[in-house]
């Protein structure tokens, strides 16, 4: 049984790790801009990023299919240029995980950045440090707790992703059968021992995540 759990564990960690790296990079930038800057379209960016938080995952998945499919806005260009279709690959699962977990990162991190005393940044400016230097060495270190919480929540969300992943990456054995998806398959096919192993692994990972954010 255990060997049946190995590939789902491997592909889940791969997808969640890659997605989380992207989420942290993009999320920090967006969070800083939302918390500290005024720019035209700020509200639009905020809504666009937050939307997947309230959108049902199957809807998010469906919209990603429309976007990334061979006839989709992005997918078509990609296919024409590279001859490569992204749907039903693990890369599509990374994109799905990224889109659904980005809002968790942005909400948590922009709140943490927003609660850093602005006067500390002002002091850094008067001491000759640029906004970028100040963000890197003053603001972000002081928002560390919130950033870590956002990272852990995003990772957990990526690990647990089900609805959107099912739509854009399918549940292809040996290719995109993440743990979340495999539990469903195992449950449907009555493979209780595999389901139990996967559930135990995921519960442990979740408890570790919670301990990390507490």
């Amino acid at each position, binding site marked *: 049984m255990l060997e049946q759990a190995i590939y789902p564990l491997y592909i889940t960690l791969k997808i969640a790790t890659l997605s989380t790296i992207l989420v942290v990079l993009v999320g920090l930038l967006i969070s800083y801009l939302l918390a500290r800057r005024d720019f035209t379209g700020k509200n639009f960016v905020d809504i666009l990023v937050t939307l997947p938080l309230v959108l049902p995952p199957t809807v998010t998945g469906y919209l990603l299919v429309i976007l990334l499919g061979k006839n989709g806005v992005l997918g078509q260009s990609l296919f024409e240029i590279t001859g490569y279709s992204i749907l039903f690959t693990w890369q599509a699962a990374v994109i799905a995980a990224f889109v659904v977990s980005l809002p968790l990162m942005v909400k948590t991190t922009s709140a943490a950045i927003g609660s850093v005393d602005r*006067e500390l940044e*002002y*002091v*850094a*400016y008067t*001491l*000759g440090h640029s906004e970028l230097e100040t963000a890197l060495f003053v603001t972000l270190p002081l928002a560390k707790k919130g950033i870590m919480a956002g990272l852990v929540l995003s990772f957990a969300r990526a690990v647990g992703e089900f609805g959107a992943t099912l739509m854009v990456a399918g549940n292809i054995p040996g290719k995109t059968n993440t743990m979340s998806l495999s539990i469903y398959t195992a449950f449907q096919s009555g493979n209780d021992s595999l389901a139990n192993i996967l559930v135990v692994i995921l519960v442990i990972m979740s408890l570790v995540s919670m301990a990390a954010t507490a």
Partner: protein
Amino acid sequence: MTGNIQVDIEKRYSGQEEAPDFNLDVNFTASNELVVLFGRSGSGKTTTLRCIAGLGKPDAGFIEVNGKVYFDSGSKKNLSPQDRRPGYVFQNYALFPHMNVAKNITYGLKGKSDAEKEQRLHEMLELLHITGLQDQYPSRLSGGQKQRVALARALAPNPDILLLDEPFSALDMVVRMRLRERIHSIQEKLDIPVLFITHNPVEAFTLADKVVVLHEGSVQQEGRPEEVFYNPCNRHVAELVGVSNIFDADTAGKSENGFVLDTDSISITTTTNVEQGGRYSWGVRPENVHLHPGGEDISGCNVFSTTVRSVVNRGASRVVAVDIPGGGSVLLSEMDNRTFGKLDIGPGSQCRVEIDPRDVLVFAREDSAD
């Protein structure tokens, strides 16, 4: 014009719910001296300081420090705070909580070698008498120590100007007095302009080479502390500097001893020029209202008999409230306990009031502030 600062800025806040129609219109100059921006909270002191530091942008005007133009709405020049690099000490110190004292102090020494940083750190630690604290984190410091670290951090990069936002309000009396002296000696040593915000009149008076009085966003008066405290130019300034006796004059005229203002049934002579029939108020500091026992025969102008209404012991001094004859107004007289003891008066006693005409302050009459 090295070593001078020149500020002439305007900033409007209109239509906002919180501060419906606050307009800042501040204009003053100073040389390498200790300038106190003095006013109530909400008078625009902090906004002014931030505009000078480049942390806020005026709508219009001009700011120059040490011959360097920081801001000029005419030529659309507006240096960033990074290019101004003022020494700025925030009200709550704003020490970096994730850096120790040494890191905090050397944080402004960008591009200096480690040896240079180390040397400057030790100069600053010595200047502010905090040697030994360099490895501590801000959370472990007392208020006075935080204050000195913040000052050291602001001074380390040799700024052209030092800006201090109510730096003593969170400290207790003893620590306060020591730091005040330190700031004065630092100003003399570094020979840069120091701008200092306070709402405390004694602090303003004790520290300032020059006082700039702000009220509701605009400069009311600027000058040596003695000028401002003993010759406030209007009622607002007078109230701020502790002239607790201010009365509207019913009539104004001229007499053989000088000029005369009438309030209720008393007639007050002043050495200040007043126009016949003009609308004036007059005021006198409570320590300039001198009381004598009821029976004592004293001559001179501004002497009248009245009744003591109440006596309040303020610890180091007494405040005696006496009636102004012919009206409901009350005049306050403050004196030390020794002088009060000699007077032998209490509520209900008769006494004689004497006010030197030179101590009578005269202002244009305006609606009294609440």
